[in-house]
């Protein structure tokens, strides 16, 4: 749906975005992940046609950005970092205007308006001036503006910034529900957001892509072994040898912070959780908790965006 090929942007000598190439399939949600100033916004602005790139090509729905910018703009919904709102208009005036300049009118405008109001839960504030709305509502109006013409591709620049936790969850749910019908590119520097809603993550640092993959695969790429943590109550009768004897287990360590909690490391690709559970119950150690540990996206991200090389070795986060 969206093909970005060797896209680059230079401001004088400063390279803002360098040779970015990626593809988003129809119905996919892709997250742009990167620290502040990594070039996320610049890249998105280039895809929307707001900033012309200095090199490379962008194709959206088969249209080239240079040859057919209008066709692309018709198919694109864009929410910039700061929602582009006219503060002196009411929510419904603004959304109707947005629909009209996106090229819809009549019944389609009415339908799109109702859909956007409903999806972004703006029914209560439709008649109010945008200037009087809270930041969270303004953000939702911005999102409604991007949705109103039911675009094939949505580009959302930090869609959850400035919202309270409840609103963040609502917006993420909304974005999640767009999957399938819409192709979504969103940028964020909040990692759980990427894990929560995306199928594909592009990690970008200093204007260049450092990794492209699904959140799960990215995490697994950086782990050398599968790790499982379990907690038992009956510590006295615990016999480490019986656990190590299980096939595939390479190491067993106790968690110094929590008594009765142990971490088992196994060979890659082995899942010993059921065997482990059986051993524990058969020996009457009283199993309290058993879970597999994965390297969180956070660690992958830190690893990729900081200079230090080497394997992630910090205590794993829990997913």
């Amino acid at each position, binding site marked *: 749906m969206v093909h970005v090929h060797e896209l680059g942007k230079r401001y004088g000598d400063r390279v803002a975005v360098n040779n970015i190439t990626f593809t988003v399939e129809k119905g996919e949600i892709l997250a742009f992940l990167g620290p502040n100033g990594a070039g996320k916004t610049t890249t998105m602005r280039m895809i929307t046609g*707001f900033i012309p790139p200095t090199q490379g090509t962008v194709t959206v729905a088969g249209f080239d950005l240079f040859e057919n910018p*209008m066709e692309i*703009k018709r198919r694109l919904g864009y929410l910039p970092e700061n929602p*582009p709102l006219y503060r002196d208009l009411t929510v419904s005036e603004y959304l109707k205007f947005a629909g*009209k*300049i996106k*090229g819809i009118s009549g019944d389609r405008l009415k339908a799109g308006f109702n859909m956007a109001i409903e999806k972004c839960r703006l029914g209560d504030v439709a008649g109010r001036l945008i200037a009087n709305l809270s930041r969270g509502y303004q953000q939702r109006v911005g999102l409604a503006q991007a949705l109103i013409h039911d675009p094939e591709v949505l580009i959302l620049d930090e869609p959850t910034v400035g919202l309270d936790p409840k609103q963040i969850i609502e917006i993420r749910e909304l974005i999640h529900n767009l999957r399938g019908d819409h192709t979504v590119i969103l940028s964020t520097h909040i990692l759980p957001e990427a894990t929560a809603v995306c199928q594909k993550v592009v990690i970008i640092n200093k204007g260049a892509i450092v990794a492209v993959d699904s959140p799960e695969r990215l995490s697994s790429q950086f782990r050398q072994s599968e790790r499982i943590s379990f907690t038992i109550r009956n510590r006295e009768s615990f016999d480490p040898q019986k656990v190590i004897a299980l096939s595939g287990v390479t190491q067993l360590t106790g968690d110094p912070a929590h008594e009765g909690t142990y971490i088992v490391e196994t060979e890659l690709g082995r899942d010993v959780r059921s065997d482990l559970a059986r051993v524990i119950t058969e020996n009457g150690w009283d199993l309290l908790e058993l879970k597999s540990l994965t390297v969180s996206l956070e660690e992958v991200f830190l690893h990729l965006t900081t200079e230090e090389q080497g394997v992630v070795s910090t205590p794993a986060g829990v997913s």
Partner: protein
Amino acid sequence: MKNIFALVGKEMRLYFASPVAYIVAAVFLLVSDYLFYAQIVYFSDLSTQMMQFQQNLPQLNIHLVVFRPAFMNMGIILLLLVPLLTMRLIAEEKKGRTLEFLLTSPLTIMEIVLSKFLAAFGLYLLLLVLTLHVPLILSTLTTVPMKPLLTSYLGLALMGGVFVSFGLFASAVTENQIVAAVLSFGLLIGLWLISPGSEGAASTPMGVVLSFLSLVSHLDNLLKGLLDTRDLSYFLSMMLLGFFLSHRVVESSRWK
């Protein structure tokens, strides 16, 4: 075309959502009515004097005594007020980041800039229409010559188009509305003051150029009731110049 309707509608809605349009209109009406009043008082003084002399003089021309000078003074008032109407046009969109919204919508820059021009020009014409009550009232008391009145309004409308398009350009180069207003004051006052200086200088090559550029002399022709294509083409080309520059500036703002 639909896009232009939507854009002009939004501009108009924003004009009347803020107090600026109302205040500008109120101040303009107050001052312009005073200008008419002053000329009418002068006109009646002149008439009384002439009656005292009881000479067989031709009748005083109400257009030349009342309307022409009042319209000329009104030009100066408009020169001061129009920048206040145009300063927000593009500067506000830049500051509020809504220009990005417009430029990423399926709109051409032509449509965006043209509808800004049309909205501000429409408001300007509305201001002119508000002054029509003066000739209307006067026409109940005396015969008001229609043709010079029409060319005068045409001249004021064309002058307004030039003011608006220069103001639009000033608004396009900055995101600060005050800067935009001051810049357009500068441009418009400059345009207003250009003249060959003296009668003698008018025949020198420089004088010819200056007198062609002089807004006041072109306006005065129309205020006198003279309809000349040279004046019309002057106003239209100045309008186009301001419009073209605005278009270029908006276009190039994407490249920075």
